């Protein structure tokens, strides 16, 4: 087996471990940090089920962003919806036989790739064109967009410009999953694509990509409006009560 195959295999194992452990750690941290007060953004649902719907609307169609700014919303939806389809399309590299619905997704996955890149370019352009957004952007915000755009463009290139040996690629991917390493094709575009994906997975838990778990843990959106009915008390705050009980 070539050094290249080994290096990429190790990189991917490393990336998966960092991603899983890192995100699990962050989720654990969000989960265990108490919420001292009830701070749902009103009007808020009065039941848990209602909160489920509220979060679903935020995650599925970015309800608040829609209220806020139609341009950002359009680009964000293009990017995120595109990304979801593209990821689903990529499942074919990791399943044998390929699941039925993954087969169905394939043609959409292609358009989704373009949508994703278009969304990213739109969001990126705003960082230059809109003075308010230029002001709040730091280097890492640009680099994150560069990373995602490069991943998208290199992926599309393999479909339309520099096709790669996807049979061999699939063997490599399945080998990764089955811990039975198979040679990785050494096309530069593929190597770039895969290297950047590994990098993305590694930076995930240390970057603003934490908005993915964060959206579920935001107290202003995930709390039920029931403060008068149910007493909400954080453990550290309960101690104050016993110190000064009237």
């Amino acid at each position, binding site marked *: 087996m070539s050094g290249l195959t080994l290096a990429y295999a190790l990189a991917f194992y490393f990336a998966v471990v960092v991603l899983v452990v890192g995100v699990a750690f*962050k989720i654990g941290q*969000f989960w265990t*940090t*108490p*919420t*001292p*007060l*009830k*701070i749902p*953004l*009103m*009007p*808020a*649902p*009065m039941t848990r089920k209602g909160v489920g719907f509220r979060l679903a609307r*935020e995650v599925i169609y*970015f309800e*608040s*962003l829609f*209220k*806020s*700014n139609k341009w*950002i919303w359009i680009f*964000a939806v293009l990017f995120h919806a595109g990304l979801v389809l593209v990821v689903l399309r990529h499942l074919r590299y990791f399943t044998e036989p390929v699941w039925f619905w993954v087969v169905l997704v394939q043609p959409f996955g292609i358009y989704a790739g373009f949508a994703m890149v278009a969304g990213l370019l739109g*969001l990126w352009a*705003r960082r230059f064109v*809109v*003075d*308010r*957004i230029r*002001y*709040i952007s*730091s*280097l*890492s915000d640009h*680099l994150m967009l560069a990373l995602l755009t490069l991943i998208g463009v290199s992926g599309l290139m393999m479909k339309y410009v520099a096709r790669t040996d996807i049979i061999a690629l699939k063997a490599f991917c399945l080998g990764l999953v089955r811990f039975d390493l198979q040679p990785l094709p050494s096309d530069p575009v593929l190597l770039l694509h895969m290297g950047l994906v590994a990098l993305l997975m590694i930076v995930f838990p*240390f*970057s*603003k990509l*934490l*908005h993915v778990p*964060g*959206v579920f*843990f*935001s*107290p*202003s*959106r995930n709390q039920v*409006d029931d*403060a*008068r009915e149910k*007493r*909400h*008390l*954080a453990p*550290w*705050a309960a101690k*104050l009560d016993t110190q*000064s009980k*009237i």
Partner: protein
Amino acid sequence: MAKTPEFEIPPFRTELENPALVEGAMAHCQPFIAAPEHNTDLGFPGELVDNWEMKAVEKLGDLLNKNRALRVYLDSCVKCGACTDKCHYFIGTGDPKNMPVARQDLLRSVYRRYFTLAGKIAPGLVGAKDMTKDVLDDWYKYFHQCSQCRRCAVFCPYGIDTAEISMAARDIMDHIGLGTKYNNEILGKVHKIGNNLGLPENALINTMEGLEEDVEDETGITVRFPVDKKGADVLLVTPSADFFAEPHVDGLIGYAKVFHQAGINWTVSSHASEAANFAMFIGSYEQMHKVAQRIRQAALDLGVKRVIFGECGHAWRVAYSFLNTLAGPWDFLDPKYPKPQHILEVTYDLIQRGAINLDASANDDKVLTFHDSCNVARATRMGDVEGGQFIIPREVIKASVNKFVDMNPDTTHEKTFCCGGGGGLLTDDLMELRIKGALPRMEALKDVVDNHGVTHMAAICAICKSQFAKVMPYYGFPMDMIVSVHQLVSDAILLGTKE
């Protein structure tokens, strides 16, 4: 007529376009720093402590472990910019640091530097900053140019609430000895005397007796204004401005008439003669807890069955959302009623049941609009349906006045704009900020005045009322255009028709 200030009153915008960015436009603006005794009265260090850099970072770490909101908000912002044009202080000043995300970044940059891997190894890349004097100066200025109104959070895809971040920053600053005179002095008065204004017990009793006489002179009917009446059914907790400020006091007269007419046996307490809890503004749970305990104490001492809050925005947030947490459980109160209840819920319910009679033609000289107070709108509810905080005040107004017009929907309900004076900023040393921050509300008001003949704007918050009375003249509106909702009720109620 208002004095001419040394700064420009922002002109009304024609297309509601965003202001051009003017870096440092409000860098000269900050509230007076607290004198040492104002801080030490609350248990904070009197002056900036020696190793304040370290202490500030330590306190931030403490808060990160105590408050999930802070942690999630600091981690989750993607800098999408959706919130950037949603803050009234940004709209009124054009200072980029008044864009909500930029305000958050003042704290986030320090969080990143000391608490995240990326900020520790590559600070320049992710905008991480050391805790320096420059950073602290920016904190003091710009975290006191946020009225904690939560408008930005409505528009953020993750509900990131800059109010939470401002509160945390102010808490940190208090812990290193850098407090504001306005807030900390007032909190000291609450602890010592029982209300924000430092109005002592006998003055309170005199005032209430005076109001009793006024109402009797005017209507010929004896409407009681009881203080510390043991065995009353209802404890009314209302902002102390209601005892004498205009137009607040007309609201208090309205509550008293409603109670009188409905035969409700009520009292105020001299021990807890203040609904506002300024500890929320400085982000201190401990102080908020201490202030809230006064209300519990008063309710127990007077043996009341219900607790009702007067018209006050932040007070209603602390009452509705926090009181059960801070001073509950309220199991000694009558379970038939919400604990606590808002005066508007009480009045609305009485109107629904026909227990009070209102003659709306008494207000036929007025055309009303309604300013949703930010904290009532986005941090509380009234009644038992989602959004009741929007419905109930409007229904009470409509029962008391025949002509009512809502302002531009982008400036009401959950999208309402802060009056410009909330969140512990209602002080003369921040006059420029207050005037500029009122711009979006003044524009919406101008629109209904010009196009619908609106003559008055009703509010349900002591801060809104004081703020508008002060800043409206700068925008060409008379100060008495702002009224209490219960002032309208007071004018319309038919006393003596139900005994």
